[in-house]
């Protein structure tokens, strides 16, 4: 039918017109920068030496330097520790919180919103909040410890506790995220399942391990992966609480790349560090998409 053909052609034209500006914009503000980053990572570019931005004489130099750079290797290790403990605590505590709040009551429904506050605060405000908590003179935490006759070390400047201090703050900030995701999953579990189990004489712990947990495992994994991706971006906390120190105890890869580019002016080398980080993020993102599809296929 020629009438429908006309409508289709008109629709296609509209679609092209609607998509084009976004695609062009995305190419210019995201695609080009990505390409430029790759190009820069192949040069020894330093800001003080403009000619070096087009020096492609040994393109893989930066990448070959990476494995032998103890600070880079250390930053990956610090990142791994921060990500591992942060994600683990956030998933675990978020789940417990969701189980606690998975109940029906007007008051609790209002409380749920309040539990989300840490997550929606600007990250820099979260960093300021924990700066206050970790500064002995003005901190309620140190005051409480002194009441108990405990002398607490300065957490953020201690080699042993600095990373822990950041993990605690990060967990406080992002636990609401896993909480919200798990709560949404809990609410999709049909009541009949646990009712039937109760009739069969199962206790609460058994219901949790045999019904609830299998049901929410996919969402635990997915929210954990999202947190894993985002944990690479932890910047304000490190910037404000420890500055990567003491030494480089809390210097995550993101922070090292920042120092390289904007403190040491090693733009080229910093770009190669960033590319490695980007590849890791893409790998995890692919995993998330793959898992999401599998879940859709199963549902």
């Amino acid at each position, binding site marked *: 039918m020629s009438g429908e053909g006309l409508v289709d052609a008109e629709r296609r034209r509209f679609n092209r017109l609607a998509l084009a500006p976004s695609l062009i914009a995305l190419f210019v503000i995201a695609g080009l920068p990505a390409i430029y980053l790759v190009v820069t990572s192949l040069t020894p570019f330093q800001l003080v030496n403009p000619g070096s931005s087009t020096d492609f004489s040994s393109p893989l130099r930066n990448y070959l330097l990476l494995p032998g750079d103890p600070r880079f290797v250390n930053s990956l290790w610090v990142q791994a520790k921060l990500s591992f403990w942060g994600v683990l605590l956030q998933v675990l505590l978020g789940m417990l919180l969701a189980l606690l709040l998975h109940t029906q009551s007007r008051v609790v429904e209002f409380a749920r919103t309040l539990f*989300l506050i840490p997550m929606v605060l600007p990250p*820099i405000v979260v960093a300021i909040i924990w700066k206050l908590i970790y500064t002995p003179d003005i901190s309620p935490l140190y005051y409480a410890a002194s009441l108990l006759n405990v002398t607490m070390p300065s957490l953020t400047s201690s080699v042993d506790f600095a990373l822990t201090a950041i993990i605690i703050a990060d967990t406080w900030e992002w636990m609401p995220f896993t909480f919200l995701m798990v709560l949404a999953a809990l609410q999709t579990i049909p009541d009949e399942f646990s009712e039937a189990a109760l009739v069969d004489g199962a206790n609460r712990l058994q219901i949790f391990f045999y019904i609830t947990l299998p049901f929410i495992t996919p969402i635990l994994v997915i929210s954990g992966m999202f947190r894993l991706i985002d944990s690479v971006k932890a910047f304000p906390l490190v*910037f404000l609480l420890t500055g990567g120190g003491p030494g480089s105890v809390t210097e995550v890869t993101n922070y090292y790349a920042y120092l390289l580019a904007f403190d040491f002016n090693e733009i080229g080398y910093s770009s190669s560090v960033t590319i490695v980080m980007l590849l890791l993020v893409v790998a995890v993102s692919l995993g998330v998409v793959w898992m999401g599809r599998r879940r859709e296929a199963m549902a």
Partner: protein
Amino acid sequence: MSGGMTGPVRRSASPRRLVAIGVTLIVLLLPFLWLLQMSFKSNDLILQFPPPLIFTPTLQNYASLWQGAFAASFVNSLMSASFSTALALVLGVPAAYALSRWAGRGKHALSFAILVTRMAPPIAFTIPFFLFYRWIGLLDTVTGLVLVYTSFNLPLVIWMMQPFFETVPSSLEEAALVDGASTRVVFLQIVLPMVAPGIAATAILCFLYAWNDFFFALILTRTNARTAPVAVVNFMNYEGWEWGKIAAGGSLVMAPVLIFSLAVRRYLVSGLTAGAVKG
């Protein structure tokens, strides 16, 4: 959520559970409340322990902030967040509509590219933007910030708006098309009004992401276009440890966020996960 069901497992909250929830809430929000109360205290009072439960609040910290350079940075934050939100919506809403009605090949690849843009660590964009802005003279300008913020807000709009468009029944559109209306008219006059709540939620999330940014503003601005989050940190570093002012600054930066985000609570998860998980 199925309301009104009082099965044996999901019965209404027991008093013991309510107490546990209350205690957890207080403990978790204590650090946040500490910042808030500090912003209303004079510096002497801040250093006083045990902290007095009842004190005369002062607005002195807020007043001295407002008289300083902080007000200008607050305006910069407002402008860069608003303009980038508007730009992302104007570009992204039609694109999301087209994508939601498009079953062609390449949809998955495009979606993934958009997801990666959303997930990439900010530093990946900061280095190229910094070099480019330095060359073209956009460093330390609100325009520069608007462009950077659009780089993460545009993918967010495209992701978040698609499910909203999918809820619009296509029979409505077809009826109008049969009556001879053009796709453009159908989109503007029939579909858009129906997704208005979705646009509002998306707009608020875009605004919040731009408003919350610290990293881009730290590197791409100096004095003229400095945003509120950077300004707070700056007087931490350069004006000594005036805790009252720092707390007041932090409270001002978080005020719009708290108000807006509670309004879009329902969409927080789909925004944070770039739409990959529907909350």
